[in-house]
């Protein structure tokens, strides 16, 4: 049900964009107003989310660790998996962000058919699918710089050359285009076919996948099958980033679908689970060093507590205690 409603939502947005592209009076809205509004929502929303996280206190030292903590000199400690130094934390974060270390640890629990035995096994597919999707996405986003920047930087052209390594057809088939769609379809089928994952999948989980699939598929169709006028696309893109927007006469209906879905993604991102893009850097379970035996972690909301120690109390009632014949500590 969640999957179906999110799919229908994306279809409706696609249909609206498709229809809007056909009506010339809607083009200004789709070409100019929508991208600006979406970009503003993205930037403001992301800054808001990050600043809100930054101002949240972290009362406890709560790193999640997967290795031996640094303690006595003769016990071998794991300086990355249970980092106790800033360098260790930085390396651990880099491995997590660039290579998805924690997903590499993903396991699967299943009950064997022959007997009531719970089996745990390695399951690297989620890690591989996630890695394939995220890296393709990065390359594809960077590749799009060719529309926004004039002259086109060298590294974009170099990346394009590597991406089109196989030199299949014209326009050249780009490897990331294939990888991103395969990876997204795998991630989607994982949610649909595994009953346990399906049970915990929410509307927003499916929405993100269908949205990204919609963007990737509309982009691929535009590049390889239903061609659009690239010169007009670049004029529009440069017009947008230089704040002197122009509305080209015609680009192609698919372009409006692509642009609308991308705008949807930008505007939706800061307010959805997709904001893990920024959140991963601010996770206390990852970015805190595991040094609770070395450094005292002070709760930032601790206020100076007025204490009355036993020594002070004894001094205050010294005479009375003595008169009652009770033992005193300080005598």
């Amino acid at each position, binding site marked *: 049900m969640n999957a179906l409603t999110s799919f229908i939502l994306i279809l409706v947005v696609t249909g609206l964009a498709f229809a809007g592209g056909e009506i010339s009076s809607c083009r200004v809205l789709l070409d100019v107003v929508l991208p600006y509004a979406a970009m503003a929502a993205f930037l403001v929303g992301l800054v808001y989310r990050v600043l809100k996280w*930054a101002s949240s206190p972290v009362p406890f030292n709560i790193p999640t660790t997967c290795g031996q903590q640094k303690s006595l000199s003769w016990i071998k400690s794991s300086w990355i998996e249970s980092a106790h130094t800033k360098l260790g934390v930085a390396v651990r974060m880099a491995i997590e962000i660039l290579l998805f270390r924690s997903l590499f640890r993903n396991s699967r629990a299943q009950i064997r058919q022959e007997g009531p035995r719970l089996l745990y096994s390695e399951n690297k597919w989620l890690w591989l699918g996630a890695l394939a999707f995220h890296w393709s996405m990065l390359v594809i986003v960077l590749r799009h710089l060719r*529309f926004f920047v*004039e002259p086109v930087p060298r590294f974009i052209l170099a990346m*394009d*050359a590597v991406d089109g390594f196989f030199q299949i057809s*014209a326009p050249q088939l780009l490897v990331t285009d294939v990888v991103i769609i395969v990876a997204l379809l795998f991630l989607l089928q994982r949610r649909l076919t595994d009953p346990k994952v399906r049970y915990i999948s929410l509307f927003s989980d499916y929405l993100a996948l269908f949205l990204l699939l919609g963007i990737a598929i509309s982009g691929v169709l535009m590049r390889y099958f239903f061609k659009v006028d690239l*010169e007009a696309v*670049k004029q529009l893109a*440069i017009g947008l980033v*230089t704040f002197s927007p122009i509305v080209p006469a015609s680009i192609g209906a698919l372009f409006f679908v692509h642009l609308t879905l991308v705008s949807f993604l930008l505007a939706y991102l800061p307010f959805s689970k997709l904001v893990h893009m920024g959140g991963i850097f601010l996770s206390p379970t990852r970015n805190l060093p595991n040094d609770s035996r070395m450094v005292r972690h002070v709760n930032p909301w601790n206020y100076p507590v007025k204490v009355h120690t036993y020594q002070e109390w004894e001094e205050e009632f010294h005479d009375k205690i003595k008169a009652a014949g009770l033992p005193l500590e300080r005598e």
Partner: protein
Amino acid sequence: MRDKVWIIAGLLLFLGLVTYPAWHDLVAGTTAKPPQLVLPANQKQCVAPLSYMRTSHMKLLLQWRRSVVRDGQTKYVAFDGKVYNMKLSGTCLRCHSQQEFCTRCHNYVGVRTPYCWNCHLDPAQVKRSAR
């Protein structure tokens, strides 16, 4: 969190990277002006309508290559009934200049020089270098 300085520095770095195209175009003085293409002086109509050529010329070239190399067909009947030889150097480059037409627009939209020129020559360039 006590690492506010780092968080804000990271945030500013991210914002800088996201808005990089705007800064780049501002510094480079880029405008939405299309590239200056030198159009053929002697011809008014290409082998297919302008809108098709703008978006799908690479499809036509692939189709021509296939016809010539695989099927031995060398004549192309255009949409307006005119018959052309299916030749890149002999037909396309007779009117268009590789440097001032193909390459300029390809550079503009960041499409890498295709492997057409691994085999084909621009006759104008050959003439110039022969002199």
